[in-house]
């Protein structure tokens, strides 16, 4: 068990039966009064954020989270299906759980899936992924409003800003942590 004084940014605890991560934390103590531990928490399943203030001496259950090596298989009507590379067990992650990460999944990609009570609640992707540009209008010379960038859509449906010289059919590298264009990739 954790106690109030263990609270800090990044700590993962169980609240109302669900895993929450401390996103922001502050210790406050009005003169001669008792200490308060103010936390901004995010529900790791639903993404809901909430504020909680704790006093000294409270205790918290650590969230039993496990990171498993898995491979992305395919998308079905429920969600995105991953397979444990050791046990071959399959887990489905929902679109809302993955958020924008779903755009960076490619067939057989090796990822780490964060699992809570057999429920997949998040993925850690490789830092970079290569995806093909499927749609991008030619750059109009003189359109300086957007600098030298223009919008492009890649094969997974994700839209991002790319340099003007990137054409349809080009393979590009994207940083999955920021969702931004990195470079062109030679096939």
């Amino acid at each position: 068990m954790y106690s109030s004084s263990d609270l800090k940014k990044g700590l993962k605890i169980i609240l109302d039966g669900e895993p929450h991560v401390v996103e922001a934390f502050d210790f406050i103590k009005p003169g001669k009064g008792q200490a308060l531990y103010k936390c901004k928490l995010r529900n790791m399943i639903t993404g809901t954020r909430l504020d909680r203030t704790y006093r000294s001496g409270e205790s918290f259950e650590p969230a039993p989270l496990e990171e498993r090596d898995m491979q992305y298989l395919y998308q079905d009507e429920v969600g995105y299906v991953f397979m444990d590379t050791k046990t071959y067990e399959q887990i489905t992650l929902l679109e809302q759980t993955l958020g924008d990460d779903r755009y960076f999944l490619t067939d057989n990609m090796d990822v780490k899936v964060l699992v809570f009570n057999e429920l997949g609640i998040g993925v850690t992707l490789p830092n970079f992924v290569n995806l093909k540009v499927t749609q991008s209008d030619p750059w109009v010379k003189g359109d300086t409003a957007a600098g030298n960038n223009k919008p492009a859509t890649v094969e997974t449906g994700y839209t991002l800003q790319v340099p003007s010289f990137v054409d349809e059919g080009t393979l590009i590298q994207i940083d999955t942590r920021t969702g931004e264009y990195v470079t062109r990739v030679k096939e």
Partner: protein
Amino acid sequence: MPARPNATLAARRDNLHKRARILQQIRAFFSQRAYLEVETPHRIPCNAPEEYILPQESTSAFLHTSPELCMKRLLAAGYAHIFQICRCWRKAERGRKHLPEFTMLEWYCSPGDYLDLMRTCEELLCALVPDEVLVWQGTTIQIKSPFERVTLSQAFTRYAPISLQEAMQDDIFEEVYTDHVEPQLGIDRPTFVYDYPTDMAALARCRPDAPHLAERVELYLGGLELANGFSELVDPTEQRQRFCATLDCMQVEFPERMMPEPFLSELRHMPPSAGIALGVDRLVMLLTDAATIDAVVAFTPEEL
């Protein structure tokens, strides 16, 4: 050997220069007013029992959480105007505005009461901010006497959804105070909050006309608590009772029920006095427009 000098430490250079100058100005301020600078031991057999202040053990003794007990013994021996700038230790206090080892300025005057402390606070801040305007984290504070004065009860009426009495009855004083009241204090000009329930002032004298209130005062600038002082309780019997009540609340068992006996026995010689503790690190934060206490000290505990 690291390839580069410590960048965090180098970036604090301006603040540390200002800090040194502020310390010199504080010393000059009190010397001009004939206050004697004193030094009392940091390591003492026991601190004044306080419910929410945890002393740091130091083998068979403790580091002081404040120099108050020794300074009051000086008062009782006839030293009428004294000040001290020293390190104090409070266990498990660490946050944006807290360090477990921090620098305190305390001063005491006799004869005197909390109204005298308020006046000296005004003079000190005016001396430190000669152009009368302090900008801290986007808040512009006019440093001109007189500062705003509001009782704790009035502050709740003004800013909180419930009264002070209700907050205390429901045992949510700290929550309501820090959420609703504190952020509103000392915004346009510094604010003194005064007259606290006796339970919240273990070493303060009660108001003769309202014995449920203690003559305690807190100074706020920009929502930041800067100083805490009171008209001193000089009745040794009542002081011992309050210490015992605090130890009862904390459910401290017999062998640890140490009382600061020399302080209690000398207290009866103490004239009517007032004393206040001011957080020097926080003062430097205000005067350097620093958002965190980390930015105004050379090393935080995590950097050692």
